[in-house]
């Protein structure tokens, strides 16, 4: 009904009343719009524009006094082995990290959802605690845990295993950071999955139980299909987060050893530090494009299901 009145009010040449409401509404939105255009939409467009120029530090005071170079920056990026390497690292981080996080968070959510009443809040607080804390601070603690003479190796030593120098070993550095990121992200997905599990119709479970389906069968045939939208949403937001992988390598490895943990965001930040502004902008847009692509793929999957 509301849809009809809305359309009726909008389609004919705007009446005085609706024009007045438009004016009032934009009045409410005006302060937001100013900040949005200056600090968000503007920079997003400017970044794209910059990526087609040769802007560097020396042009900082006169950003319009630069040359257009077309796609040069992008061509250079994909000829730059370090950048391609950083993309691969980011890819590994996403492809390994996202599914592991989703599976672990799902297991925790399922466990919490199956008749755990006592300590429910305690568990929720415990699993969610890493989410609310600063990555920088936590990365420092993990850095000490992963030192050659640190907690993890001390623990492994009890079993007679001599652990590697996790963060200085080209094989182990990236997995170490993935482990930490998984640890940090389980809580968010746990909360989302718990909310999603509430929406799974109880009758379906009961029906499956009557048919003699066991716990595992019920999970795959009842819970999982009903949770599909929630799962895809979780995959999208976790994917977007993991693609922006920055604080962990910045604090723990600076992208080393031998670029083993160099992420695309880290690479962009370094280029910015060197004063290569246009080049950094192009790199950031490649990352943005990757995020859009990943999200589109996931939304496509979601649509197919509905």
């Amino acid at each position, binding site marked *: 009904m509301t849809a009809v009145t809305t359309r009726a009010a*909008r389609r004919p040449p705007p009446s005085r009343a*609706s024009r007045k*409401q*438009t004016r*009032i509404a934009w009045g*409410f*939105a005006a*302060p*937001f*719009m100013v*900040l*949005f255009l*200056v*600090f*968000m939409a503007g*920079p*997003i467009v*400017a970044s794209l524009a910059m990526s087609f120029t040769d802007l560097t530090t020396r042009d*900082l005071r006169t950003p319009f006094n630069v040359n257009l170079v077309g796609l040069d920056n992008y061509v250079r990026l994909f000829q730059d082995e370090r950048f391609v390497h950083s993309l691969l690292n980011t890819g590994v981080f996403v492809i390994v990290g996202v599914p592991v996080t989703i599976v672990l968070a799902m297991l*925790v959510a399922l466990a*919490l959802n199956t*008749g*755990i009443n006592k300590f429910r809040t305690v*568990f929720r*607080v*415990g*699993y969610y*605690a*890493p989410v*609310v*804390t*600063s990555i*920088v*601070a*936590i990365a420092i*603690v993990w850095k*000490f845990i992963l030192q050659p*003479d*640190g*907690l993890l190796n*001390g*623990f492994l030593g009890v079993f007679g295993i001599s652990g590697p120098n996790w963060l200085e070993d080209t094989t182990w550095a990236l997995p170490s950071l993935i482990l930490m990121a998984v*640890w940090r992200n389980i809580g*968010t997905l746990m*909360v989302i999955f718990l*909310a999603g599990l509430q929406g799974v119709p109880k009758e379906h479970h009961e029906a499956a139980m009557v048919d003699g389906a066991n716990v595992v069968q019920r999970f795959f045939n009842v819970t999982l299909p009903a949770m599909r939208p929630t799962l895809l*949403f979780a995959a999208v937001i976790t994917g*977007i987060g993991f693609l922006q992988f920055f*604080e962990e390598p*910045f*604090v723990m490895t*600076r992208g080393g050893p031998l670029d083993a943990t160099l992420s695309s*965001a880290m690479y*962009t930040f370094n280029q*910015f530090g060197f004063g290569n502004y246009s080049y950094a902008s192009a790199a*950031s847009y490649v*990352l*943005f494009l990757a*995020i*859009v692509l990943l999200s589109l793929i996931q939304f496509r999957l979601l649509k197919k299901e509905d």
Partner: protein
Amino acid sequence: MTAVATPVLAQPRRANRPRSKWWLYVVLGLGMIAMIFPFIWMILGSFKTTAEIRSNPLGFLPEAPTLENYTQLFGRLDFATYFTNSVIVAVFVTLGNIVFSSMVGYALAKLQFAGKKLLFTLVLGTLMVPGVVTFVPLFVLTSNLGLVNSYPGLILPFLITPLGVFLMRQFIMSLPDDIIEAARIDGASEWRIFLRVIMPLCGPAVATLTILTFLGSWNNFLWPLVVATSEAKYTLPVALALYSVGQNAAQYGLMMAGAVVVVIPVLLVFIVLQRYFVQGIALTGIK
């Protein structure tokens, strides 16, 4: 009397009763220990000397608890300044988000206007844009405005967040239209309705928004790292990250104490208000 009834009733109930869940508690408990262990180790480590952490990595309780790390942190390294900076930035960022998000949220939720759909699409679209995309032009802009290394430079880009707008819109949409209609019939202006009718009902949403934006600002790293160029304007994460690669890096105890100063305030707030965090995720996450 009951002796007759009980066995009959108890029989089917026992068959239906879920089996004991003790092993679930054990698994969840072990998992939780893995989740909170770094925090506990960090807090205990902050009371140890670096020598003790190095020589005895598996040691749990400090052998001779010392406040040395904290006195050094707040004395020599001036963490009190960084703490104050973090608080100032977070307070203004939070206030800005409450004011601007609720205003635009009201317009998006309850007013019909030309351009509404476009505005909402724009806001949602920016949710996907990673931080690294905007920080180069933002830095050029901030630098040209002469705001590098200043509070306005740290605060202005975060006075609005797409997430804040989204959250307020979702909540205000759930308020009944009737109260707004009633106020309109009584002759109240839209501003009056917003201030006197809508905002007083927004308590839960504002609480959630406050927590999420304060926390986001407190933990924010990339932008302060770029824009705070002198120690006087460092926020806590920036100071901690930069000290952790300098001369102080080898001082495990000191760095642990620094991490405690950054983490513990938000952890305490979270434990007290955890209900709102979960609400916030639910409000933004599920539909």
